[in-house]
């Protein structure tokens, strides 16, 4: 995508504004209710209202963090904190993240050969990458998504396999550009930050990300990150 083209800039701005307006509307509307109508609200509605506020805030923050992260990565300023990670805890943290689309879905199948192993990496970056990829796989397929993790002496290998729409060959490069969205999936909501974030995170971990995909059959994303750093 050519960011110097006014059309593309316009598209980015309109997509930003849409992405932010909705959560801000939710916040504003609910706050007005809580302020003016709290006496008429029953306990359930009041707590739902607070929850909606929190969700909206989370989505704004998440969005801003995403942009911020890409910005840092572009300037090579992402910090890395390596620590020992337990595979099973690592998986737990990904699955129990409430702000993901796949939260509590039974379509996510976990496949790990050695749940009790430990490996060294930056937990935050790796979780961020895997979460974004899982969210994508979940969003672009209606069937099961298989998350496979196994570690050896040198690498932690994560594979995310879906049976979704697939990615056209000529788009394999473009999909890593921020705000890029394939024509084929324009009807599925999103802003186009998932893959760029995942790529930048894996890059920072000196790992590789590889995509195998065939149209309407599915996509396999393979991450390979060195562990002895």
């Amino acid at each position, binding site marked *: 995508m050519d960011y110097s083209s006014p059309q593309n800039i316009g598209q980015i701005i*309109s997509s930003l*504004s*849409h992405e932010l*307006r*909705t*959560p*801000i*509307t*939710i*916040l*504003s*509307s*609910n706050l*007005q*209710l809580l302020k*003016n*109508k709290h006496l*008429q*609200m029953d306990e359930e*509605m009041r707590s*739902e*209202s607070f929850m*909606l506020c929190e*969700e*909206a805030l989370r989505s704004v923050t998440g969005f801003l963090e995403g942009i911020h992260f890409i910005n840092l990565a572009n300037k090579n300023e992402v910090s890395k904190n390596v620590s020992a990670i337990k595979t099973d805890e690592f998986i737990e943290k990904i699955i129990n993240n409430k702000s993901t689309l796949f939260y509590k879905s039974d379509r996510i199948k976990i496949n790990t050969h050695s749940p009790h192993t430990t490996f060294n990496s930056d937990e935050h970056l790796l979780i961020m990458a895997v979460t974004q990829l899982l969210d994508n796989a979940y969003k672009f397929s209606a069937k099961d998504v298989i998350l496979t993790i196994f570690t050896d002496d040198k690498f932690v290998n994560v594979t995310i396999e879906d049976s979704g729409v697939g990615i056209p060959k000529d788009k394999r490069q473009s999909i890593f550009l921020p705000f890029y969205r394939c024509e084929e999936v*324009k*009807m*599925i*909501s999103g802003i186009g930050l998932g893959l760029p974030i995942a790529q930048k995170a894996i890059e920072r971990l000196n790992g590789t990300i590889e995509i195998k995909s065939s149209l309407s059959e599915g996509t396999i994303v393979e991450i390979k990150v060195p562990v002895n750093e």
Partner: protein
Amino acid sequence: MSDKKILIIEDDFALSKTLRNVLMLNNYQADIASSGAEGIQKAYEYCPDLILCDINMKPIDGYQVFNILKDSILTSRIPFIFITGRSELNDIRMGLELGVDDYIVKPFENEDLLKSIKVRLDKYEKLVNIGKNNYKALLNLSPYGVFVFDGETIYETNRAFLEVTGLSDSEVKNTTFENLLTPKQYNKIEGPILKCINGLSDNFQEDIKIKNADGDTEKFRLHVTPSQKYSGFTLLIGLLSPLEHKTESTAPPVEYKKLVNILEEEKITISGDLAHKLHKAFTPSQLKYHQDQSDVLVSKNIFSKREQEVLTLSCKGLPIKMIADQLNISDRTVEKHRANLMEKTGAKNIVEVIIYALKNDLVDI
């Protein structure tokens, strides 16, 4: 008054839940559809009093939802308010040109949203009431029996329907449409009626026999079309047109025009005997249960006494001079009255006036 039903069509579930709470706390019923397609379906199903719709949805966006709902009689009059993140003037203008009732731009004050909803609902209700009154007046003028029913129970009828069936208003409410027919006749139309109720068919017509006021059966052509949804079930409108007169009513206009032209070209005025024949030929559609004189579209009293006299004499075939002599008025006054007659009947010449008068039984010869 029951709570108004509002349908929210919005693909962001958190926003629709928020909207629902805002509406519910202000005594509205709210229903959520999470995509354009679901919205269209729910609009048909529940027939809401108002629709709040997001524009930016995929794959069917708000404008498409609007256009589809505008195309159907069942949903076209539901007030439609767009909720949008876009604030560009062009978009809004385009929507207003399409006939969208209002736009609310995100984020909004709850009060503004509620005010807009209230204005649209009030305006809609007023329109419906005006429409209802005009409609009732029109229905009662109709010589054909018209009735609103749900396949069984009859909810509303016009005067002609009561005259056909010989039932009173309260008797109609205590019977069903099925009871007006023999079982065999009802079997013929049961299927098509069900299709209309379920939205599988737009309309149907069938020749049926109905028990009339005298206890005889009379042949009618029944036309049925779905009207609107009312708390979950569809109301149908039925129209009964008498079959006997069907063929005659289609023929006259052309013949009538031809005759007028011939008479005019030949400068023939009509004498008494011919007038009688003409009267017979062009009086096909005097419907039998249509005796009330006040129901005639142009009734006698729209003509002044003098005009009526001029008309009667003209119908007898008298030339202007003789009419003037008989009425003791000048030729010019006769001309003036004739001009008035033409204007009032929409006729182009006096022969048309005469034929019109004969057709509508406005003169006694």
